[in-house]
């Protein structure tokens, strides 16, 4: 899985490319946590527009980041989830706690 990071003032934007499964999940969570710690940020935007496959491991990755950021009084949201990704998230009721935005701009304005 390919991750690209951009810092938008006080928010970390991560653009993910590839397949998110149990195998790639560990690297994804480690690299995101590491980057948040290193830059001292507590706001995260996860961009799923480049994710071509995702199983329930993706739910674990998002909920895990949500819990960590919540402890630091931070927040997070998701953008660019296609229908296939959305279906997996919807099964878990994830969108009740983590908001989904249509665009990165909208996400930056709202978190």
């Amino acid at each position, binding site marked *: 899985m390919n991750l690209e990071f951009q810092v938008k003032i006080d928010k970390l934007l991560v653009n993910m490319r590839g397949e998110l499964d149990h195998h790639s999940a560990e690297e994804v969570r480690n690299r995101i946590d590491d980057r948040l710690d290193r830059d001292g940020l507590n706001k995260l935007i996860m961009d799923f527009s480049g994710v071509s496959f995702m199983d*329930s491991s993706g739910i*674990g*990755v998002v909920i895990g980041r949500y819990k960590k950021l919540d402890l630091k009084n931070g927040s997070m949201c998701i953008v660019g989830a296609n229908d296939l990704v959305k279906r997996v998230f919807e099964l878990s009721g994830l969108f009740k706690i983590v908001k989904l935005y249509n665009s990165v701009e909208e996400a930056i304005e709202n978190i």
Partner: protein
Amino acid sequence: MYDNSMKVEFVSKSQNESFARVAVAAFVSQLDPTIEELTDVKTAVSEAVTNSIIHGYENREGIVKIEAFIKDRELTLTVEDEGIGIEDIDLARQPLYTSRPDLERSGMGFTVMETFMDSLKVESKRNKGTRVIMKKVFNSLS
């Protein structure tokens, strides 16, 4: 009895999760599935194989076996391991239940399989292994 079938076996390494998805997807492609149907099957395979790797074998090395059968427009898929087995299948199938909260798992594996396939059966024996049997009818017309 069946129109077509296949069997693959691989070592329980997480790198093989994507191999398993692609192998099954390639086999299923003869039914001319829609992209959504194909994604459903790939996601279900991914969940079952991941379960075998993390829970069945607890990340130790073992063999995961997948068999797929096609009869008319119905796919029967079995994913099998010779791992530790599931003590309480009903509990394991409950949404959000995970035996390994330390791993940041969502506990949605069986729920995903149930939702994306037409039927799901789980057979398990303590210290013998687990077999997951899933079926799906493909409605798309060739």
